């Protein structure tokens, strides 16, 4: 199994089989059991982070994971690097490939991580490419469900918000499909329902999709509700945004209709899509979810760099 992970690029969660992800999760379990203190298995390795788009959680959690494993971290600052002088993305990545043993990257362009993987000899981890993939977030999200629900298959899972342009929601749905989830509830305004290419992929897994425009109609069915932000800039008409905004807010009134065992997840950052008084309820799983980012990314770095014990 370890062989499967060694030197592997992580471009899309679709590149992985269920048992490979299960293996990653079991290593994550071990790292959490040992309170993330597992020595310095990546001593002497250099991890580069190259985020051509803003990031807080993804970049910092990868850098934290690398430091905890004893690796050194180098960070590209696109705004003050030669990119600002007009260097191409490909040339920049080639240069980093000379310096680092592994590169974690994010780009506003779809397909950038795939191109990086083609031109770089060292493994590439995609920390988000435009609206397309965010595979490691999906790994954290699926792991969270496994931890909190002890299973994935058989659960009724709703995905709410921007399902058209949101890469975290897309990768999450792909991840659920890999784990054999039979039904997903898509809860979004019509204009933010998934793109054709995403629907086609989900259809290949025989995932049954149910569409709902109003969360109130389906909240009582759900075991898991995955919330993403609806961005104002996605709407050509600001009045339309104002109209839908409130419909997708998760608050105590809505949750009074939910199953007792419902968990509410969110890849973060949130703005106002989950009201703050939900944070202290039993439903809130998003901070727990965020806490798995470092151990899971530690496990990922260890597997790819062959440092698993």
């Amino acid at each position, binding site marked *: 199994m370890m062989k499967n992970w060694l030197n592997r690029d992580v471009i899309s969660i679709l590149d992985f089989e269920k048992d490979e992800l299960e293996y990653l999760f079991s290593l994550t379990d071990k790292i959490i059991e040992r309170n993330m203190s597992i020595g310095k298995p990546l001593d002497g390795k250099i991890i580069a982070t190259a985020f051509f788009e803003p990031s807080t959680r993804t970049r910092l959690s990868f850098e934290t994971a690398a430091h905890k494993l004893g690796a050194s971290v180098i960070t590209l600052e696109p705004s003050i690097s030669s990119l600002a002088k007009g260097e191409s993305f490909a040339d920049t990545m080639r240069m980093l490939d000379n310096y680092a043993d592994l590169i974690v990257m994010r780009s506003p362009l779809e397909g950038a991580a795939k191109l990086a993987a083609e031109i770089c000899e060292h493994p590439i981890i995609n920390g988000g490419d435009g609206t397309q993939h965010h595979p490691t977030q999906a790994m954290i999200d699926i792991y969270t469900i496994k931890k909190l629900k002890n299973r994935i298959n058989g659960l009724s899972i709703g995905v709410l918000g921007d399902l058209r342009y949101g890469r975290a929601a897309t990768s999450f749905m792909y991840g659920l499909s890999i784990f054999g989830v039979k039904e997903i509830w898509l809860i979004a305004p019509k204009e933010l329902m998934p793109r054709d*290419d995403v629907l*086609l992929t989900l259809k290949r897994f025989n995932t049954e999709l149910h569409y709902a425009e109003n969360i109130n109609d389906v909240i009582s069915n759900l075991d898991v509700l995955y919330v993403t932000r609806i961005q104002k800039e996605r709407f050509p008409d600001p009045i339309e945004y104002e109209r839908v905004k409130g419909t997708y807010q998760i608050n105590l009134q809505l949750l009074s209709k939910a199953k007792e065992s419902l968990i509410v997840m969110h890849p973060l950052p949130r703005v106002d899509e989950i009201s703050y008084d939900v944070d202290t309820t039993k439903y809130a799983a998003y901070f727990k979810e965020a806490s798995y980012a470092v151990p899971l990314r530690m496990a990922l770095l260890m597997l790819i760099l062959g440092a698993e014990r």
Partner: protein
Amino acid sequence: MSEISEMKVSKIRDGTVIDHVPAGRALDVLRLLNLTGKEGFIISLVMNVPSKKFGKKDIVKVEGLELEAKQVNKLALIAPTATINIIRNYEVVDKKRVKLPDRIIGILQCQNPNCITRKEREPVIPNFIVISMKPLIIQCEYCGRLMNESEVIKQLIR
């Protein structure tokens, strides 16, 4: 080939005849084959000749050049009905229909302006996987976006 088209363009001794091209697309066929006329081959085309099967059709003849399957299969994108006849000493020695390849490399541009393949200075060639032949659906290998037949035609037909 019908008699009428025979009269308009004489038989060739050696080379390739692309028959049953949808009417009006012969020039696009040449462009897709990267035949500019500067290569020196004798190229003749007839357009809008009567056809029993299609009503009207175009025919392209290239003398002295035997086109290989790899070169002509991309014609399936704009001329799926086309037949390729290889001629030697005035005889048809091989006749086949164009067959869409599994991948379309180069030729088309991804429609997604945010796709890495659309960035001018990046060393990347557009690459599409054929998802379905009928109706035609192709998927960008880089950004995952789909393209349908009319979108493909729009790019290739001028």
